[in-house]
């Protein structure tokens, strides 16, 4: 017999740590809730002979109908009726967390509480009488310290026990006081007349939601014969309560929480915690931003410099594979494997170290709790730019790879804010574009090459900001959604947790590499090698390039550049490879030489900028469609980026020629 267990709780309570501790990685499965962009994580585990299916529900502060992730959680509990719902509570933050427990009890879920971060609560000077608390709520409570693996076995024991005795125990009901209970009862009486509703949903919960004017539940009663009677009952009860029922109920829940905690929680005098000390500086009025800059600069330095020799290692590995395959008897096959696969793909894979190191850095900052402060600091600036403070993290991730960056926009609440962030994200220079810059800058700019490469990063940021402002003023008018963010306590990130987070994001890039880049490398190889034996100009690649070249004449791009740009659509890294094939040379030095011979520095710089800004790679386009859910905006993005790239290219060409560099 398999029991279904749902994990639920506020954000930052350690839910994912518990999930990862209970379910071994190999048995985890990540997907999406059907029809939604909310991520669904589930897995199986076996505890003392019992098999458990664990479903990780999204971390939310409430269960209203207002947010997709809240609805998903709520519907799951009410409709799928899991055997046990484990409510993970942050013990150091127990007051607010217990509010959520009441919501779960209203849903008549079979609740087991994991009182997590128990160590932090102790440090804060909290003394919690777990037995008393459990008695008052009527649910089993297990103190845990998930990061130290404490209490998890007992938790699993309680889960199994709760699942087994579920049918035999009446669910605890919390009394909300005479006035409210009367209001609820009168609605429940009407509900019970309906045949279907009380079978499908807990009547008490329905009544409460109806009183709260919950959109989703109001939809649910639409078909009922008693709809108008219900609506009448609701109005009457609302009047009886005197104030907006939603607030009356919320206040009551908090009152009950206080009452319960009065007998089970003792707070010692407030200690001056490390978090207080750190925040004094990290969100300091004047030092906050410089410290932020220093931390991120350190992270980028780490990501790019420490990974350099490893990139070299990977590169040489694939080069030797490519050389070895030259020995394959069949010429076409040799070329396919050598140039197409090892050559093309290998080059791309050399960028794994910096991207992973970057994600590691971000994960460490995130797990320590600093990233929330960074978002807070950035919010002030981002607000003026028409963006939301939460857009900061996706933008940051964009420096690694746009694919996980765009997926990270899910935490942004306002639709418009999210859309703007998605639209401008590709302007942030991702790791893939770096090889192109390095090649071109190295070829044309000698000692200033590094500065030229840096300028691309800044250019990307500036364009993203300008475009965000523009979009905010025109197509996506409105104020950004209010920024409210919880700042978790600082904690030392564990190596294991950070590596897991790094891996989760890095894997997106790898998937992209495994699919699009591989396909791209093969297609590129095919189009440039065939017709077999022909000169490059006459290959399919050449033909495409020559057809489109006239459009790019004002920028000084000839057919060779255009052809490589077309291929870079598959993945921007491919541009280098493409140029190599088109010039029929191998190795970066040779390609650089060919470039310098054919073009002037202005064109070089314009090309760098164009690569930065134009149409995102196929993987990104695919992600855009998935995250925005609309072809309209995806196509808009494609067109927008192309137009912006072209315009900026023209500006650069104009300025450069005027300054005499042409």
């Amino acid at each position: 017999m398999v029991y279904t267990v749902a994990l639920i709780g506020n954000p930052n309570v350690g839910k994912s740590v518990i999930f990862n501790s209970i379910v071994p990685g190999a048995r985890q499965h990540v997907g999406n809730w059907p029809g939604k962009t909310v991520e669904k994580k589930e897995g199986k585990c076996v505890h003392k002979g019992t098999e458990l299916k664990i479903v990780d529900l999204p971390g939310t502060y409430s269960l209203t109908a207002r947010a997709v992730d809240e609805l998903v959680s709520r519907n799951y509990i009410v409709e799928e009726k899991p055997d046990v719902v484990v409510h993970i509570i942050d013990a150091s933050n127990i007051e607010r967390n217990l509010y959520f427990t009441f919501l779960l009890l209203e849903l008549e879920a079979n609740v087991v509480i994991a009182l997590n971060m128990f160590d932090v609560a102790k440090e804060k000077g909290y003394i919690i009488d777990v037995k008393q608390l459990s008695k008052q709520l009527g649910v089993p409570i297990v103190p845990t310290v998930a990061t130290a693996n404490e209490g998890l076995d007992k938790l699993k024991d309680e889960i199994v026990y709760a699942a087994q005795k579920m049918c035999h125990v009446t669910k605890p009901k919390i009394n909300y006081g005479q006035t409210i209970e009367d209001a609820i009862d009168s609605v429940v009486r009407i509900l019970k007349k309906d045949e279907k509703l009380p079978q499908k949903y807990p009547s008490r919960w329905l009544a409460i939601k109806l009183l709260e004017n919950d959109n989703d539940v109001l939809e649910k009663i639409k078909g009922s014969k008693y709809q108008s009677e219900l609506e009448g009952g609701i109005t009457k009860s609302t009047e009886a309560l005197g104030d907006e029922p939603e607030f009356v109920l919320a206040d009551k829940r908090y009152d009950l929480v206080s009452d319960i905690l009065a007998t089970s929680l003792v707070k010692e005098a407030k200690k001056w915690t490390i978090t207080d000390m750190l925040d004094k500086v990290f969100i300091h009025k004047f030092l906050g931003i410089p410290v932020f800059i220093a931390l991120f600069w350190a992270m980028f330095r780490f990501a790019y410099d420490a990974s350099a020799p490893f990139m070299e290692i990977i590169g040489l590995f694939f080069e030797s594979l490519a050389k070895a395959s030259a020995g394959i008897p069949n010429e076409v096959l040799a070329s396919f494997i050598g140039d197409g696969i090892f050559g093309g793909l290998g080059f791309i894979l050399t960028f794994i170290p910096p991207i992973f190191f970057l994600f590691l850095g971000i994960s460490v900052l995130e797990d320590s709790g600093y990233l929330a402060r960074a978002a807070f600091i950035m919010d002030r600036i981002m607000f003026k730019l028409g963006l939301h403070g939460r857009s900061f993290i996706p933008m940051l991730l964009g420096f690694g790879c746009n694919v996980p960056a765009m997926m990270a926009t899910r935490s942004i609440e306002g639709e418009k804010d999210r859309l703007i962030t998605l639209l401008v994200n590709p302007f942030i220079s991702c790791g893939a574009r770096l090889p192109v810059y390095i090649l071109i800058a190295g070829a044309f700019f000698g000692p200033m090459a590094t500065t030229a490469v840096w300028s691309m990063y800044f250019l990307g940021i500036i364009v993203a900001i300008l475009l965000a402002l523009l979009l905010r003023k025109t197509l996506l008018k409105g104020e950004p959604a209010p920024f409210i963010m919880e700042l978790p306590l600082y904690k030392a990130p564990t190596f294991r947790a950070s590596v897991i987070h790094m891996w989760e994001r890095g894997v997106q890039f790898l998937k992209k590499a495994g699919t699009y880049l591989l396909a791209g490398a093969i297609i590129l190889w095919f189009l440039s090698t065939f017709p077999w034996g022909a000169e490059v100009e006459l290959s399919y690649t050449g033909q495409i390039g020559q057809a489109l070249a006239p459009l790019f004449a004002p920028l000084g791009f000839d057919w060779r550049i255009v052809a490589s740009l077309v291929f870079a659509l598959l993945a921007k890294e491919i541009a280098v490879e493409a140029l190599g094939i088109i010039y029929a040379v191998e190795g970066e030095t040779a390609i650089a030489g060919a470039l310098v011979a054919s073009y002037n520095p202005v064109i070089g710089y314009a090309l760098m900028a164009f690569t930065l800004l134009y149409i995102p790679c196929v993987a990104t386009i695919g992600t855009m469609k998935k995250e925005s859910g609309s072809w309209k905006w995806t196509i808009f993005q494609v067109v927008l980026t192309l137009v912006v790239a072209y315009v900026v290219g023209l500006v650069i060409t104009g300025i450069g020629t005027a300054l005499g560099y042409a």
Partner: protein
Amino acid sequence: MMEIPLAMLPVGAKGKITRIRGGRGLVRRLSDMGFTRDAEVTVVCSHSSPNPGHGGPLVVEVKDSRIAFGRGIAVKIMVQEVDN
């Protein structure tokens, strides 16, 4: 005692929430995070100033968690200052 917007409380001050001047969405959101009537909030860090039109975000402690929000919201939360 007078009601003042949370934005006007200096760092270290405590206030008791009297009401929230905003649309339902905001009120509900804040209430989910712990900002309910009579809840006590302590200002941890404020880049705001009493002058209207000036200032930036705030960080407060409410019900044991630290919440950060922009000034736009801070002016909508009305509190009564409480002595330490």
